[in-house]
């Protein structure tokens, strides 16, 4: 039954996103298909360029952003040494890839569903929107720090009702939090579904408002990972009872009330 594989795949394309303002800070990477095609939005892959040899031992986890007949697309923000080196990959380079890994976002076709993306957290929602049977039930909210053109926002806003807020100065954060509170309350009232992906403080905000309003919310965690398969216990988070659970296999997606952030 296992669909997970580890393969060397080929880089097809590395294209900067929003390069005008932030050269190379965000990029999309297209990889040749490993021999799996069943995957669910919210799942991720572990990726390690073969050229890394012995330095930087760990692969890096990335949400599957989209898969089509030609390949697998990841959407990546350069935040450190590994992603910087990945931005320099060229077509033809080999990367070791394993997956699809982890669980996936709940899909309730007829439920009003709110997608809350914090920055690069928008990555998995591309696949979610593409695969959703009733995208008209979806709404996207993006809180972003960098110019909008850096994110695949246009792609999504063409398909679903979307809204975004820029955090340019500290006071913007209050606006964003207020907007999130309002949205979460609205979806709680409609017995909707809330899915969130972004940095930990962003997820904490979601968790807090969901708890306050009783909203059903899922959060996707981005803990540092070494193995991605549940073995190293390096990625754990405490669940509601304080037991350490692996984010890579028991997550990365958790119901907001089952995990401590």
């Amino acid at each position, binding site marked *: 039954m*296992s669909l*997970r*594989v*580890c393969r060397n795949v080929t880089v097809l394309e590395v294209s900067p996103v929003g390069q005008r303002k932030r050269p190379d800070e965000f990029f999309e990477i297209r990889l040749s298909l490993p021999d799996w095609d069943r995957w669910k939005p919210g799942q991720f892959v572990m990726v*390690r360029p073969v050229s890394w040899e*012995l*330095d*930087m*031992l*760990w*692969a890096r986890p990335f949400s599957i952003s989209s898969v089509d007949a030609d390949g697998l697309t990841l959407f990546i923000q350069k935040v450190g040494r590994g992603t910087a080196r990945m931005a320099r990959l060229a077509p033809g380079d080999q990367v*070791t890839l*394993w997956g699809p890994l982890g669980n996936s976002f709940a899909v309730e076709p007829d439920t009003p569903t709110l997608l809350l993306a914090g920055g690069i957290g928008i990555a998995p929602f591309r696949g979610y929107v593409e695969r959703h049977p009733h995208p008209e039930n979806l709404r996207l909210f993006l809180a972003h720090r960098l110019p909008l053109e850096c994110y695949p926002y246009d792609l999504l806003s063409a398909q679903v009702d979307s809204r975004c807020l820029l955090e340019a100065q500290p006071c913007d954060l209050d606006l964003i939090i207020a907007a999130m509170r309002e949205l979460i309350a609205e979806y709680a009232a409609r017995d909707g579904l809330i899915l969130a992906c972004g940095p930990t403080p962003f997820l904490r905000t979601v968790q807090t408002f969901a708890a306050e309003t009783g909203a059903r919310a899922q959060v996707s965690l981005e*803990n*540092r990972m*070494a*193995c*991605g*398969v*549940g*073995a*190293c*216990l*390096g*990625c*754990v*988070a405490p669940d509601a009872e*304080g*037991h*350490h659970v692996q984010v890579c*296999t028991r997550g990365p997606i958790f119901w907001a009330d089952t995990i401590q952030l």
Partner: protein
Amino acid sequence: MDMHVSFGGLSLKNPVMTASGTFGSGLEFAPYGDLKRLGGIVAKGISLAPREGNPMPRIAETPCGMLNAIGIQNLGVEDFVKRTLPSLPWRDVAIVANLYACDAAEFGELAGVLAAEEGIAALEVNVSCPNVREGGIAFGQDPAQIARVTEAVCKRAGNKPVMVKLSPNVTDIAVCARAAADGGAHILSLINTLSGMAVDIRKRQPRIANVLAGLSGPAIKPVALRCVHQAVRAVSIPVVGIGGIASAEDALEFILVGAHAVQVGTANFLRPDFAFGLADQMAALLAEIGASSLDEFRGSLRLPL
């Protein structure tokens, strides 16, 4: 080339084992290869009672290596014996239990429980628990404690071979090796991780919540080879080499200095199928470099006079 090895009461179809804590129970890696291709699987550390392990963050990447302070998170020996062991292919691959405790009595008790299990091929003793009474120096850094713990485990190990895993964080590894052999160990395995640390200059905090952590991976291979070389010369019991192995060539380096088998740890994170092909690659490389057999190659390092 025949890769079968027998030593210290263990019989393995090839000399490649996976190292404790880096390969889960083994089952996590089943999607990526046939567990039966491995010479052995050392399960992750097991304690008598369940342990939640250390707070997060627990891991950090370092140049050609990594730090970890997992803190032996595990569900306890009862869960292991009832739920994990039965689902492992223990008839076809040697399953070694890795025992963690903080005193000799506890080690003995743990050994007693595991020795009763048909599915366990050997017991590996992890003496890295910090000895709080002695200022944080671990049991494994004190030869007298190593001998005491080894004796306690051997007494309760029944017919299971006992493998004592040595720490490299000592002044003289030969003394520790002899202490374990004198305590009755059938096999030595080494090295466990080097004590290390990493800090974040922006947050002005340690990168690992536990502050101190264990360094593993290719970075430590030269230290591991040196320790294995010294241990092999210090005792007559067989030795299993561990530390930084990330290729067939690395594995053969440990065999060359005299190890009977190797354990692969951090390299399992390079790619989850890493360990499965290693024995075949070692066989091919042995042939390529003109070794007539694994036995002939083992320990054939020529030292200057």
